[in-house]
């Protein structure tokens, strides 16, 4: 059973299109992180959100943490081929050790030139 679900599992879009990927759970998280992973590499942190309703922007990427801190979304505007990769959300549930960060299964994004 996945504590963090991500959707869609796969996404293939044309360069210039917008997209949104989602991270959902039935549990409350004290924080959520988004990572991007390229093939054969380790994940690299994009952002951490900690407050319910928080919105963070990183250039063309917009991250939102749900009001109830059970879900998050990542919106990419005008996608570019360099955005291609596996997007992983990760979080630490409330009432657990801060070491136990849980990862979702990821959304594999392919941006076609």
């Amino acid at each position, binding site marked *: 059973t996945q504590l963090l679900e991500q959707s869609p599992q796969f996404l293939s879009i044309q360069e210039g299109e917008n997209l949104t990927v989602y991270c959902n759970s039935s549990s409350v998280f004290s924080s959520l*992180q988004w990572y991007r992973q390229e093939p054969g590499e380790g994940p690299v942190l994009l952002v951490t959100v900690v407050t319910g309703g928080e919105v963070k922007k990183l250039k063309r990427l917009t991250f939102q943490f749900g009001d109830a801190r059970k879900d998050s979304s990542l919106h990419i505007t005008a996608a570019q081929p360099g955005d291609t990769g596996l997007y*992983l959300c990760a979080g630490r549930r409330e009432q657990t*050790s801060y070491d136990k960060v849980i990862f979702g299964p990821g959304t594999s994004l392919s941006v076609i030139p």
Partner: protein
Amino acid sequence: SQTIHQWPATLVQPVGSPLSLECTVEGTSNPNLYWYRQAAGRGLQLLFYSVGIGQISSEVPQNLSASRPQDRQFILSSKKLLLSDSGFYLCAWSRPLPPWLDTEAFFGQGTRLTVV
């Protein structure tokens, strides 16, 4: 600056053979260390984490073990590999902050293990 080294990058091992993957961190003291396994195109499963020398927590029952003989060295081992041990293994570290503060995980380049 901090760096993390993980080796080897790729490994092909026969079923029943032993395994030793090594990870070292430079530029920081007393890091929290992690071993994750990732199935192809999927998320990361936490296997072990350590908050100090000789302190290992196992997340899932498995054919693997971990050791931390030195502050910045983390080793993943197996006495006899199974086919199901194949995967992409990632070592990571994070700063030893208090539990109420969040910190990111910094990942190594990973080891692609194929058990044949």
